[in-house]
């Protein structure tokens, strides 16, 4: 791990050497020194990886961090190059970004908006990070995105699924590769209709905070559009650990599908509880009772263990995909770490590559130039098929995977199987879709 020399401020690398012998101190203000925030002047460029390292999402954060390290290794020409070899844009040459060696600093979001902003600020102010990326919840992503907008650096969102990240809280300096709740719903609905029919009654249990609400809204809208009836929408407190009192009334409500708009520990517990109550063995309205978890992640599936078997959901990417890009990424990640990458690892790896590529194509680290290079960028070879970074809202549009908990896993990582790859066209929406209304990108801010 030689690439984590953490502390130097790019700006000083040269000036410190030059000025070391001089006894005359120089005073300058931050703004007069460079054209944009943290302009790299030395031979290196510093990226800031802001992931949860403590708290409930620490394992997910650790997986993201592994992917970041891998990405940095590949950008600097190390390793087998991973998805650099399959990426449709070929401007990256394995010599860092624009010839500058990539270094990185890490921060701990603690999955709290506050702490995440503090760690992002510290990376920007102290370590001279030119770009911030990461996060594993929407609240954090939106908060850090806002900060990056004000500070004048690019934010490449990690795992954030709320519509708001590229909806009402979208920012000119922020970009999201991950899919969102609307896309989950749009991808799931046809599969649900195909497998469970169009005459179903759904019961929603929703984590009582912003992300939960947007997902509930999206799924309810999509399923109602195909003829399902929404029996009830029940909000559950974030702090809940035991969902029995929310799950036990479900069977008697007349519903025959339970939608769990939960994530992380909430999802693990609510799904475990639901299976415990034997919901899946029951018959309601003459149909098999079904459970749906719209947003899946492998770590959650692992936490819920055998309870995920046969449960449908959606994910951004899965390691069992057989396209060249996915295979290359799994190969390179698996060789280095001994297990396949999660979707969170995949999205942050892509985001790092996309940022580097945009900088290379723009020929500059100026956030505004990079934003321009990313806007409307079409690419392929990163595991999700042909993808568009839409200019209107900085959201990636790509295929979405509908997955199901595997009945007979072959190994400990083999928890989900891909049921369907919903094409990008089917999950695309208008930029002014009501679920995404109410915000504006604003202007790109180069800071300084």
């Amino acid at each position, binding site marked *: 791990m030689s690439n984590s020399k953490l502390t130097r401020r790019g700006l000083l690398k040269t000036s410190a050497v030059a000025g070391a012998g001089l006894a005359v101190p120089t005073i300058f203000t931050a703004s007069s020194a460079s054209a944009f925030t943290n302009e790299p002047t030395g031979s290196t460029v510093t990226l800031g990886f802001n992931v949860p390292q*403590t*708290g*409930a*999402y*620490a*394992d*997910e954060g650790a997986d993201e961090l592994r992917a970041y390290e891998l990405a940095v290794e590949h950008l600097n020409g190390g390793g087998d190059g991973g998805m650099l070899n399959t990426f449709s844009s070929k401007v990256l040459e394995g010599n860092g970004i624009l010839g500058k060696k990539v270094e990185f600093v890490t921060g701990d979001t603690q999955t709290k908006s506050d702490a995440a902003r503090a760690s992002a600020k510290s990376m920007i102010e102290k370590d001279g990070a030119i770009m911030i990326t990461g996060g594993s919840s929407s609240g954090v992503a939106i908060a850090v995105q806002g900060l990056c907008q004000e500070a004048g650096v690019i934010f490449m969102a990690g795992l954030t699924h709320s519509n708001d990240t590229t909806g009402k809280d979208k920012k000119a300096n922020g970009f999201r590769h991950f899919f969102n709740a609307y896309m989950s719903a749009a991808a799931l609905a046809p599969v649900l209709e195909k497998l469970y029919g169009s005459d179903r009654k759904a019961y929603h249990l929703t984590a*009582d905070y912003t992300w939960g609400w947007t997902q509930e809204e999206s799924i309810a809208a999509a399923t109602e559009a195909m003829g399902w009836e929404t029996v*009830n929408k*029940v*909000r*559950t*407190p974030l*702090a809940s*650990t*035991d969902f*029995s*009192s*929310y799950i*036990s*009334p479900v*069977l*008697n409500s007349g519903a025959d599908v339970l939608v769990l708009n939960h994530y992380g*520990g909430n999802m*693990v*517990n609510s799904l*475990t*509880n639901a299976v*415990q*109550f*034997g919901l899946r*063995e*029951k018959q*309601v309205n003459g149909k098999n009772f079904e459970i749906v978890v719209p947003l899946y992640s492998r*770590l959650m599936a*692992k*936490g*819920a*263990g*055998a*309870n995920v078997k046969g449960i449908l959901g959606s994910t951004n990417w899965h*390691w*069992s995909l057989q396209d060249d890009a996915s295979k290359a990424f*799994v*190969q390179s990640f*698996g*060789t280095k770490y001994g*297990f*396949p990458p999660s979707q969170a690892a995949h999205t942050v790896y892509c985001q790092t590559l996309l940022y580097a590529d945009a900088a290379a194509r723009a020929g500059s680290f100026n956030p505004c130039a990079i934003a321009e290079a990313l806007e409307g960028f079409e690419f392929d070879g990163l595991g999700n098929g042909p993808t568009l970074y839409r200019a209107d809202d900085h959201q990636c549009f790509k295929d979405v995977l509908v997955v199901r908990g595997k009945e007979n896993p*072959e*190994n400990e*990582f*083999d928890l989900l199987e891909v049921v369907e790859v919903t094409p990008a066209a089917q999950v695309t929406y208008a930029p002014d879709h009501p679920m995404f209304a109410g915000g504006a990108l604003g202007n790109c801010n180069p800071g300084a």
Partner: protein
Amino acid sequence: MDTFLLQILNGLDKGSAYALIALGLTLIFGTLGVVNFAHGALFMIGAFCAVTLSRILNLSYETIDPEKKDFLGNPAVVKTTYVESWFGPEAGAWIIDWAVPLGILFAIPIMLLIGYVMERGLIKHFYKRPHADQILVTFGLAIVLQEVIKYFYGANPIPTPAPSAFKGSFDFGVLLGMDPNVIIYPYWRMIYFTFSLVVIGAVFSFLQFTTFGMVVRAGMADRETVGLLGINIDKRFTIMFGIAAAVAGLAGVMYTPINSPNYHMGMDFLVLSFVVVVVGGMGSLPGAVLAGFLLGILESFASMNWIKDILPGIDQIIIYLVAIIILLTRPRGLMGRKGVMEE
């Protein structure tokens, strides 16, 4: 009516965990006069005893099977557990399947030992210190314990299922002459409830009917006098601390199939269990048990839809609201004694 019945069941089940944790907490407070903020962590460690046992049972040797491929396309490594190779596949699988109930046997000595070490090594030095100091040092200990667990087991929840014999649920409604599926309840949760009653009963009869228990009860009422009678009350208190730790640990072991254990589950329960203890009345064992079940039931009622429609968000705060009301109207809790903890 049926929804009320259902929620009472839920409440009793939730209350079981609350009552068990609060019972141990009160035992420690009543005997030692120590406010133990690390009690939630003991619950968590109990849960991880089950995880550990299940891992031990799953220890395995590896053989390479060239027929199968792993995710990278290399020849797969096939693991066979020692248990299965020793006892034969069937008996071995049964033992692994029963890891959680077996975890009880595994957890008791470990929890007693942890309790003993904690009391002798740390708590002992805090008997004469203010309650605030006790809260703080045990709070520090709780952080340390959970970080240690996190270091070894990670932050992700670890699924620890119940034996397959207890999967599924029982239909109470049919028993009461209602339609099927109206009141169903998982077998394991019923076992948890029964288990908690057994443990509570055991602790109470131990205190009630043994000489040891009598001395401890006398010591709870008046420590100095008992000390003057020439009884080595300290040693007994150490044992009581061990027992309290074991009660918390057992609550944790049996809880694992209900929710996958994670390193911070102790903190999740800590605040709650303190509310339970205070509502029950600091130092009152029956109060703790009563308050545990009561709060469990109230919490379940608060999650009913029509109540949430009238008072949005009530299920978020019900526990705290009850605690506040009880503390303001019955300052010593439901069954507390006067003058406890008000220095």
